[in-house]
């Protein structure tokens, strides 16, 4: 702590204050005043299906512009089919065998990926916290599959919180990253996303991911796949509306036909 004392003393001196008088934070409540996010959270909470669908459209447009392959799945089965197809058609970059790894997450467990490749030479790993070989398995995998905690339509970003069973490397080390996003986890912009982050009980490490890894360091030419995944596939899980919502959706389509620009 000694280095800190001298350091702070020096700062106070530079600010023209008494160097040895510590300033406790409680005397400056305005410094860390929490912004009032109640209204933002309310907006997110009360978003109608119609508004959510609008956000999905915005997300789609922004994701495409960034080179993210985005697809909308109506069910877990549909989503699983998309994953299976990617695993079968894509080729590993660093190895000759096909390993994939996915987060230990209920939504991904529902896909039952380990069942779907039982007759092929494809190994499916789950990133269980207790797995001592996880690092090697992740490095060996050419596809990493995660479930995003928050999606941001405005910038086509998804946010991953590091949690037990959901390590950072799954969305980083494999050449291809497949991210799942439930429609109800999609928010409009970063302001809303930050409001949600603040609500999280445990906020350790987290990352915003916006598109595939890229570089333009050689003659400003854009190349995908610098150090992270060179391909990103975003699967938005948007189940068909239940009975009550069907009418809403139809209304939406109706309105859209009348105002194609909206």
């Amino acid at each position: 702590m000694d280095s800190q004392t001298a350091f702070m003393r020096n700062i106070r001196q530079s600010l023209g204050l008494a160097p040895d008088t510590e300033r406790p934070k409680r005397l400056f409540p305005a410094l860390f005043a929490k912004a009032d996010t109640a209204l933002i959270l309310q907006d997110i909470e009360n978003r109608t299906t119609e508004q959510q669908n609008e956000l999905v459209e915005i997300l789609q447009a922004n994701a495409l512009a960034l080179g993210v392959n985005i697809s909308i799945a109506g069910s877990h089965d549909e989503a699983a089919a998309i994953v299976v197809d990617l695993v079968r058609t894509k080729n590993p970059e660093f190895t000759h065998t096909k390993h994939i790894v996915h987060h230990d997450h209920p939504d991904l467990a529902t896909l039952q990926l380990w069942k779907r490749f039982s007759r092929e030479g494809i190994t499916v790993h789950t990133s269980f916290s207790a797995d001592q070989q996880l690092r090697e398995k992740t490095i060996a995998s050419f596809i990493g599959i995660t479930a995003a905690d928050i999606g941001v339509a405005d910038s086509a970003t998804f946010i991953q919180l590091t949690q037990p069973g959901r390590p950072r490397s799954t969305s980083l080390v494999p050449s291809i990253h497949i991210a799942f996003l439930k429609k109800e986890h999609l928010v409009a912009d970063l302001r809303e996303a930050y409001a949600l982050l603040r609500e999280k009980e445990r906020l350790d490490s987290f990352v915003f991911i916006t598109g595939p890894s890229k570089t333009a360091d050689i003659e400003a030419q854009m190349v995908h796949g610098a150090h992270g995944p060179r391909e990103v596939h975003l699967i938005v899980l948007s189940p068909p509306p239940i009975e009550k919502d069907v009418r809403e959706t139809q209304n939406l389509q109706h309105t859209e036909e009348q105002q194609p620009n909206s």
Partner: protein
Amino acid sequence: MSATTPSNYRTAATAGIASPRLQKSLHGLQNRFGKGAMEIWATMTDQEMRRRVKDARMNTFAHLDIILAELAKNVRTRGGQVHFAATAQDAIAYTLAVAKRHKVNRVVKGKSMTSMEINIDPVLEDAGIEVVETDLGEYIIQLAGDKPSHIIAPCIHLDRNQIGELFEEKLGIDYTNDPPTLTMAARRALREKMLTAEMGLTGCNLACAETGHISLVSNEGNIRMTTTMPPVLVALMGMERVVATLDEHREALQLLTQAAALQKLSTYVSFLGGPAAEDDPDGPKEFHLVIIDNGRSKILADPEFREVLACIRCGACLNICPVYGKIGGHAYNSPYCGPIGGVVTPLLDGINKHADLCKGETLCGACKDICPVENDLPRMLAALRHKLAYGSDLWNTSQHSPAEAYVYSFWKIVIGNPRFFRLMLRTGRFLQRPFVRKNKMVRKMLGFAGGWTKGRDLPPLARQTFAELWKEKYAATRPNPIEGQNEEGN
């Protein structure tokens, strides 16, 4: 900044201007990113945002002791270790000790300006540790034994052919000048390094005190690799690189990524606030945050320059500066180049030592217009010139050119006295005669004035001044002259 060597401003600037390759790259860069950032500022709906972020930054500095203490407290709560380093040597010694304690053989670096400012690489290398830059641009620079020439695009001065030859020599691949193939070669080489390094070394773009996180932006993913795969992580952070709250973080981050690369967000924004939790399967086992002063408190103490600490290192001022746009980054002889370098390099490393930097800029004001936090760099460049002209005890600055001072005291007398002034003009017209060439320009002057005409011609003094012409042509027809006033004219 011990990384710097005596000024080579003139020679490096001349070389930069003479290089068609560099001129083409700089033109492309400024055309895209400089114009692009100006366009974003002009069209953004929230026109108050830049002002707001600046105010928040300045408010942070006024309470920097409290905010840094909060940051340190929150990082320590998560099990991270925080070290406050007063000097570059202190930061280097601490980092080296961490590396030695863990018997580190290889360090992978995420792009960090601060690490270059304190010049830590040679010390680590002398200790037998391999240091590998992982940002592609920085990696190329490292392989070439060169120096970066742009804050965001470090190897902008190299073209694809040079990089192809470099990779052929250093990475042992077949020659190619195809950027995707070259990038893939570096991807493979660096992946190996990043997966096996025992220690990661990064900077910090913006720390958030309220939550106790540092955040790092990157497009390549190298910073995520560096902060995830090695078991030990050391993050170097200038003490001003902090915001108080998450809300302030969001706004500063959005300005940073838009100003730096016209992106709503960079590909990755990583938030780290300590070592991996016990139930986290990966991430560093040890997390060290080194908060560095190294001359910043002196800037903080001077109201004239405190503003420059608000800089978020986006590099936008490089993308618009007409001087940087011609001479390139090497002339600045510092990790911080362009207009921001022109202010911050002298303040951190000696105003006299870097006298050429503030004098080379034109004070045109473009850097102020493009700065996401509206830093008044031209004002500060002028203030630095003032220190050089008159000397400053506070900044331990001596008068840069006594001869220049004499010339200007003489000039002050001349322009204060019309008769003397006209006499000077007449003498000048007479004396310049032998120097005016066929193109009606003065090609070469004598003595130390010769420096001025080294790269350009000087228009000679006119045969008649404007005032003389006016008098001759219009004085007689001047409508309603007010008697007794302005008889002299001039």
